């Protein structure tokens, strides 16, 4: 057996190596793979049976799962050592994007020739890593001074991203910072204070928002005010979801999607396509999978032996949850339209790879839990 393995080409040798010692959490990987598979099926329908998009997305998934498997083998201590450097690289890239980036209406993308890449996605990982790194050696719950440092570490990239403007990602990055502090045991009084501060800052935020962002928020409350304009997305999304009913219209039979009434149907609004075609039963199944993933990840975080590992794993799982809630809330008209994709399902590369990388780190925490000793 081993002789045969050596004769195989390199990628297969690597696969065989991973297969022998996967160092992953099987159930979690299975749940993630299930959601990704569902995503491909919906994408096929949403893209109008376009095999090319499905193939492209599959390649991204393969790249993401490779990143997952590789990261799962890297011990958390190693990751911790690289953290400050990764954080700085992320910041620099954000600055580069601010000056050189491209994209429709907003500067988010960096063209690397082969792939285009959103540096903001990197920050979704490096900001919680950085905060976990900072709090790792310190007494918990964090002191006021530590809190201030953490807030600055979060605020700098969050403001840069918000200025692109990419409010959705900025909120995700910001919330990941708050999750670190929350999980680190920040006193309930300070948590309440931060919440109050956030509420107080809302008018300020409103002031700095672009007109299109403001109208999106307003439209959430009364989309029928402009049914053919700014209210269109929300109305069509709700029609798609509502007309899906309990059992859905069936795969490839969603009229809202296939007749192009639903905008952004393979990216941000893919959940509406899914809800239209698979109905409430499909939606509940998907939410159950998501809930399982989040709870499994939090469980892994609880078993971790060091602060960095558990803060990182816990924060990444809660951030994953925020993705789901913001996107589903938008689809169902509970939250304003914010450009947040449905994790593992929406078409798009950078977010997919960064999500799977996050799962890789969580797996790493899981597989290294026994060998870890607090130094």
């Amino acid at each position, binding site marked *: 057996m081993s002789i045969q393995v050596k004769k195989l080409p390199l990628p297969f040798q690597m696969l065989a190596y991973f297969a022998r010692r996967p160092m992953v959490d099987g159930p979690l990987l299975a749940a993630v793979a299930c959601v990704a598979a569902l995503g491909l099926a919906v994408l096929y329908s949403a893209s109008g049976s376009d095999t090319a998009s499905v193939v492209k997305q599959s390649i991204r998934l393969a790249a993401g799962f490779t990143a997952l498997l590789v990261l799962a083998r890297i011990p958390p201590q190693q990751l911790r050592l690289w953290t400050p450097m990764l954080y700085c690289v992320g910041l620099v890239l954000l600055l580069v994007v601010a000056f050189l980036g491209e994209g429709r209406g907003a500067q988010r993308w960096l063209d690397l020739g082969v792939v285009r890449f959103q540096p903001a996605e990197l920050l979704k990982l490096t900001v919680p890593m950085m905060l976990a790194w900072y709090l790792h050696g310190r007494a918990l719950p964090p002191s006021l001074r530590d809190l201030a440092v953490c807030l600055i570490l979060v605020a700098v990239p969050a403001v840069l991203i918000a200025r692109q403007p990419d409010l959705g990602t900025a909120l995700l990055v910001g919330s990941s910072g708050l999750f670190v502090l929350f999980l680190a045991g920040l006193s309930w009084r300070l948590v309440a204070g931060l919440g109050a501060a956030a509420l107080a800052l809302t008018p300020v935020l409103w002031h700095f928002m672009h007109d299109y962002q403001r109208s999106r928020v307003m439209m959430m409350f009364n989309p029928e005010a402009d049914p053919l304009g700014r209210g269109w997305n929300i109305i069509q999304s709700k029609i798609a*979801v509502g007309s899906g009913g309990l059992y859905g219209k069936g795969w490839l039979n969603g009229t809202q999607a296939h007749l192009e009434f639903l905008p952004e149907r393979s990216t941000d609004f893919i959940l509406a396509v899914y809800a239209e075609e698979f109905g409430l039963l499909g*939606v509940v199944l998907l939410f159950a999978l998501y809930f399982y993933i*989040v709870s499994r990840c939090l469980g892994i975080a609880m078993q971790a032996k060091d602060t960095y590992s558990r803060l990182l794993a816990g924060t990444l799982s809660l951030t994953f949850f925020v993705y789901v809630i913001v996107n*589903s809330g938008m689809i169902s008209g509970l939250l304003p339209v914010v450009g947040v994709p449905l994790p593992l399902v929406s078409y798009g590369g950078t977010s997919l790879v960064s999500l799977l990388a996050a799962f890789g780190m969580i797996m790493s925490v899981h597989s290294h839990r026994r060998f870890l000793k607090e130094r």
Partner: protein
Amino acid sequence: MRRSNSKPLRDAVRENQVFRSRALTGLVLVGLAFCILVARFTWLQVFQHEEFTTRSEDNRVKLRALAPNRGLIYDRKGRILADNRPAYRLEVIPEQVEDLDLTLAELGALFPISEDDLERFQKLKKARHSFQSVPVRFRLTESEVARFAIDRHRFPGVDIVPYQTRVYPMGPEFAHVLGYVGRLDAEDLKRVDASRYSATAHIGKTGIESYYESELHGDVGHERVEINVQGRVLGSLEREPPASGKNLYLTIDAELQQVAMQALSGYTGAIVAVEPLTGDLLALVSAPSFDPNQFIGGVSRENYQTLISSPDRPLFNRALQGGYEPGSTLKPYIALAGLESGTIPLSHTVFSSGFFQLPGQDRRYRDWKRGGHGSVDVVGAIEQSVNVFFYQLAYDLGINSIHDYLAQFGFGQPTGIDLRGESSGILPSTQWKRQVHGLPWYPGETVITGIGQGFTVTTPLQLAQAAAVIAARGHSPRIHLLDRLQDPASGDWEAPTRQELNVPIVDNRNWEAVIQGMARVIHGERGTARPYWGNASPYQFAGKSGTAQVYGLEEGEEYVEEEVATHLRHHALFIAFAPVESPQIAVSVVVEHGGGGARVAAPIARRVIDAYLGDGSALSMAGTEAAGSDPARPNVGAGSVSEPSG
């Protein structure tokens, strides 16, 4: 690590506990959030499911009206007179256009859209629902269609629609028979059932096209179509096809119509040709004419101005609406009135000394021939058009018996032809004068009525109708244009019912005498039309000339044609039928300002009759043709030639 060593007071166990409790709190919150989401989706997908299903259907399904094909129009031998050809028009669905003015302006940059187009568009838009399409431009050229196709994505709610456009291949020759279709406008929509016209862009405006609009139009179809967000139709879900309009076969003979048109070229006037035994209208010409094709796409203001300001009034249908003093063409009917009523016997003669005077009055009613015609009987009086004979006869008959007898020939009332706007002419009586003018009748007015002057007004159609009644010896179906119609779907034929004009016959010999007089007008030694009639022919004609005064002459004044301005010259009239014994065709000819009736109008009548009857070889065929030799033609109308009489 260094930093961790500097904080020796850390309590790892407690940190772990804090983290666990926080993570559990987080998990509970996550669970709660998922519960809220599931509740929200349940609300949308279960409780509001029906409402959203309706809205989703409204999104994708549109009801589209399908225009029926307009029925085609043929002549009696199946030659096409009004055809449909494929064309393209530009339509806008106002509801789907964000900024209508801007869109129209941008479309105007692609191809010309005239002021008229825009005006009609705005009017139609108000008359239709905003989800219904409204045409902007018709008859787009191929390059215009191509230009739009390139920029199509810029114009949601705007579309190129194929349709059938009307074409009149014979153009001006049939303008006064067929009329024309024009664009459906807001006024039309008030007249018709708008739901039947929801997909229709054109409607009959005049002529046959207007009279038989409901038969020609057909029934609108409907289609439930699936559309995408741009309003583009992706497929049909359900379809109730439109029912094409019925095809009309007219009694008109296209060849004869062309001959009649040519015969009148250069004149203003009218020709009507009828088949006496059937009442079939064979030709109806009003000159000058116009090209009806220019009205289909919407006539330009400029062309329309030219048409309505022309002194010759090409749009005016003289055959139908032109009122002319009948002049001497009325004499055969006066003669018949006298004979049949017993006012004069067949042997009655009158000595013409050149004028007639009412008892006790000085005024002289003159003969057209100086010194008179001498002694004439009724045949000679018609042959030579002896005024004195008819002055006396009219005076003896009295105006009311003239009125009552002539009314039986259809004078003074519409012929009932299947065209709109026919004028009824005037057949005067004492009652009529009292009602219209509020004045008593004077005997002198009876005298001039005897030669077709005074109040009497006839249309060329009435003249032809009356000639047909004489030719057919008393009964002739009322004049009509529609021979039969066919439902293109079932192939079933339909023939309209006919009404007859019946003049009771007291004595056949009276009729034959009058007809003989009319034959002598053409063939007799002293016949008024003889010098102008031309070569001999294998069959006999009967006819009567007439001259309608455009302005009255003072007593003693001479009418010298060359000295009178053209527009004041007399109108030339002629009625004729042939062959005398078995009439196939009766014709009336009016040439405005043509001068003497026999000189100008008689040759035109001959040309038309000859064209129809041919050189005599066609004569034997003509009899069978009238009975329906065309295999496609069901047995409509008379089956036999009139019985010989007298």
